[in-house]
């Protein structure tokens, strides 16, 4: 009949208590958050009395997981960036030209003269003057292709070398492109994470989305523009030998040279050797500093390899100018005064103190492998978020009160049971949201309010069924049992179908749709649990105590 074994009773109550325990920190959101921040800082080794005081705001033995508030509730910036992964192909292929030239010139007797032809980006076209040597030329160039370690492509190589008319065409193979894309994305993610962390904001979300996109959400930052300035810069630093200066941007720079504008002086252009002496990849540190005239500057240090290259070059070229190039602009082109050994130096330019600080951050974090396009950006002011939270809270409380009153009026004692179950249901939703670190958004709050309304549905189904059964069944115990049994299939079917839509929403949706799907899905799970187990346990407890002859429902 209405027997529930003791272990089951403990399990059900245990889950409810856990739900309440893990939901509680959210009632003291501000305190817990300050506690968590302080604890985080203390763990990194900075302990001050103020931090200890902050940490003491919340006892350590209590759960301290909080619901992550979405940007629409907390304010902050959201960016969706697309990484131009194919930029990297062009660099890789361009870098191949010297080796191809050297290989083919060793075979000059067979292939004749070698010439690089104009081509699309990401493709290297080479012409040999003796068409009879074509087969040999292809064979030689093919030796450049390296076998790849991939899961699928057994025997795949990283380069495709084909013949197109009189040209040899070298491109990255399909497998290599996929591998390169993946590497580019991972590098970009890492560098963006570094840069955002350097800016010292709280819990940023930096995620890869799809093939070539990165989603960046930073709570508490003033605007998306600020965030964009921080992560939108490639920050590629290189040091080049200067060939000459010009005021005409259309001057032909000559082979293996590039023409780059000056940052300091409009209308001034430098012709530089294309191959840098040292690049920013070899930096190990960069700090904001001041030069001997007390102007803001950035000091840097190279790794041993970079330092040696830098030292050798400066020793050999005393008296000639040397260009420091950042993202295709010459920051400055000082004349080398003496041999710079030890691998450290200083970059001066027309910087403000803020600019040097930012440049140092960017250089430390490293250069992005490819440029990014921003597809979507959103800034939400903190006040707007606060307003939304307040509005949502009030609405949720009113909705709760209305439902509570309504249920008691309709079902009496059973209504009270339903209401207690509803409270546990809410606690469980908040506990789960906190534990899995889900983000609560405005539509998410609507989802919770809707859950309040719908959570009673399963309970109502059961109660109505008990009511019906008590008209025909023999005795209240039987009515209760039949009520639960017969309501079961309707509850399951109804909730499974809704759950399916929640899962599809989560899989397909983005942003607000996802946030909503999470609360809806969790709400369904917890409301089925509370309706089938918690109310049942309470109804049985009520029945065991009161032993009513007839059910008043």
């Amino acid at each position, binding site marked *: 009949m209405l027997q529930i074994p003791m272990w089951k009773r403990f399990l059900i109550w245990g889950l409810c208590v856990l739900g309440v325990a893990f939901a509680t920190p959210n009632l003291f959101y501000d305190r817990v958050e300050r506690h968590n921040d302080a604890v985080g800082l203390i763990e990194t080794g900075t302990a001050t009395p103020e931090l200890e005081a902050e940490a003491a705001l919340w006892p350590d033995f209590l759960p301290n997981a909080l619901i992550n508030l979405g940007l*629409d509730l907390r304010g902050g910036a959201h960016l969706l960036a*697309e990484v131009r992964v194919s930029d990297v192909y062009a660099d890789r292929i361009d870098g191949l030209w010297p080796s191809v030239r050297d290989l083919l010139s060793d075979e000059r007797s067979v292939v004749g003269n070698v010439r690089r032809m104009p081509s699309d980006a990401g493709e290297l076209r080479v012409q040999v003057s003796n068409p009879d040597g074509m087969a040999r030329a292809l064979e030689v160039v093919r030796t450049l292709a390296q076998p790849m370690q991939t899961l699928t492509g057994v025997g795949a190589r990283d380069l495709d070398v084909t013949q197109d008319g009189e040209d040899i065409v070298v491109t990255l193979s399909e497998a290599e492109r996929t591998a390169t894309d993946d590497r580019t994305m991972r590098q970009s993610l890492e560098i963006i994470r570094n840069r955002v962390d350097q800016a010292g904001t709280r819990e940023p979300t930096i995620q890869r989305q799809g093939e070539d996109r990165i989603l960046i959400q930073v709570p508490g930052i003033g605007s*998306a*523009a600020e965030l*964009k300035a921080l992560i939108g810069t490639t920050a590629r630093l290189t040091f080049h030998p200067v060939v000459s200066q010009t005021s005409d941007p259309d001057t032909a720079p000559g082979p293996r040279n590039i023409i780059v504008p000056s940052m300091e002086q409009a209308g001034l252009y430098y012709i530089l050797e294309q191959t840098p002496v040292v690049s920013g990849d070899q930096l190990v540190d960069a700090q904001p500093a001041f030069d001997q005239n007390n102007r803001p500057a950035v000091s840097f240090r190279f790794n041993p390899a970079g330092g040696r290259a830098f030292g050798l070059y400066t020793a050999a070229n005393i008296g000639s100018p040397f260009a420091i190039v950042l993202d295709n602009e010459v920051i400055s082109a000082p004349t080398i005064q003496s041999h710079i050994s030890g691998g450290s130096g200083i970059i001066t330019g027309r910087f403000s103190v803020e600019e040097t600080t930012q440049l140092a951050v960017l250089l430390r974090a490293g250069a992005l492998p490819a440029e990014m*396009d*921003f*597809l*979507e*950006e*959103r*800034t939400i*002011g903190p*006040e*707007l978020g606060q*307003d*939304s939270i307040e*509005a949502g809270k*009030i*609405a949720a409380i*009113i*909705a709760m009160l*209305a*439902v509570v009153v*309504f*249920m008691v*009026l*309709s079902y*009496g004692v059973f209504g009270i049971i339903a209401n207690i179950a509803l409270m546990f249901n809410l606690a469980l939703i908040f506990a789960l949201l906190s534990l899995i670190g889900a983000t609560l958004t*405005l*539509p998410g709050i*609507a989802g919770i*309010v*809707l859950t309040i*309304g719908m959570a*009673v*549905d399963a309970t*109502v*189904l059961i109660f*109505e069924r008990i009511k*019906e059964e008590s008209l025909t069944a023999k005795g209240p115990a039987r009515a209760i049992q039949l009520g639960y049994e017969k309501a079961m*299939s*309707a509850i399951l*079917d*109804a909730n*499974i*179908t*809704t759950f*399916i*839509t*929640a899962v*599809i*929403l989560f899989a*397909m*949706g*983005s*942003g*607000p*749709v996802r946030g909503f799907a999470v609360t*809806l899905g969790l709400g369904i799970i917890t409301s089925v649990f509370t309706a089938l187990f918690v109310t049942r346990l309470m109804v049985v407890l009520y029945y065991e105590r009161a032993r009513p002859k007839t059910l008043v429902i």
Partner: protein
Amino acid sequence: MRLKLVPSVTSVDFFRFWRVTFGASVVAMVLSIVVFFVMGLNFGIDFRGGTTIRTEAVQPVDIGAYRDAMTPLGLGDVAITEVFDPSFGPDRNVSMIRVQAQDGVESVTPETIDAVRLALTEIDPSLVFASVESVGPKVSGELVQSAVLAVVLALVAVLFYIWLRFEWQFSVGAVAALVHDIVLTVGVFSLFQIRFDLAIIAALLTIVGYSLNDTVVVFDRVRENLIKFKKRPLKEVLNLSINETLSRTMMTSVTTLVALIALFILGGDVIRGFVFAMIWGVLVGTYSSVYVASAVLLFIGAKRDWSKSDSDTGGTQFATDDK
């Protein structure tokens, strides 16, 4: 004193005028489609790209002045609307400015935002930008696609689940009800030109969930009663099932509506459109589980013999509605 929304035992003949109500539903759907094609939807930037700026100011919003200030910037199509909300005091004046997607750029440049900010603060120094959101045309196209795909996939999944748990006739009824609810909701959004953005898609799918919930509860009872009363005409069984679940339907709909109405009034203007969609969805969802889902079932008939397998009876037996 016990509150009763409906008497304990009811025997309303829901299908007395089922042809009329079903006809009305069909007419309403056709009208919705017509309205949709004539007036279109008021798509938010999620779906058509562009930038929206929410401004808040102490001084009252002067749309004409805002427009005059923004015209020289040459941003193309600019829509400025004032936002009214009962919870705003006299010193809180909110407007929404929507700027079309700019040619050749994926999202808005900081320079554009600064130019707008500068132009507007000249009129009203107290003005602040509470939020700035910008979606590039590439992404907005994808968002439309994935939203439509999500709705269609949800429908297919539901169709499949109900077919597994019930019979194909029930699936058709349930999905007809869902399509009905979605079409009517889109019609209402088009008619009142409420802003249609990603959050509304979330609402639309909740409507799907809610309406389904309701339909499945009724169908579950129909299935049970079909087994119990093998000889009764389908129409009577449907009527009985709906009557038996009526008090549950009312309780759930009313409590959900109470919660939603609280959110509608007190939840602030940011989610008002979203909550409106859900309120409307609860109303049509409740209606459609009886007058569309069950009516379709009545129309195409349902397999009556659940006790024996098909091979025993030599085929599927359908009930015909009593003409």
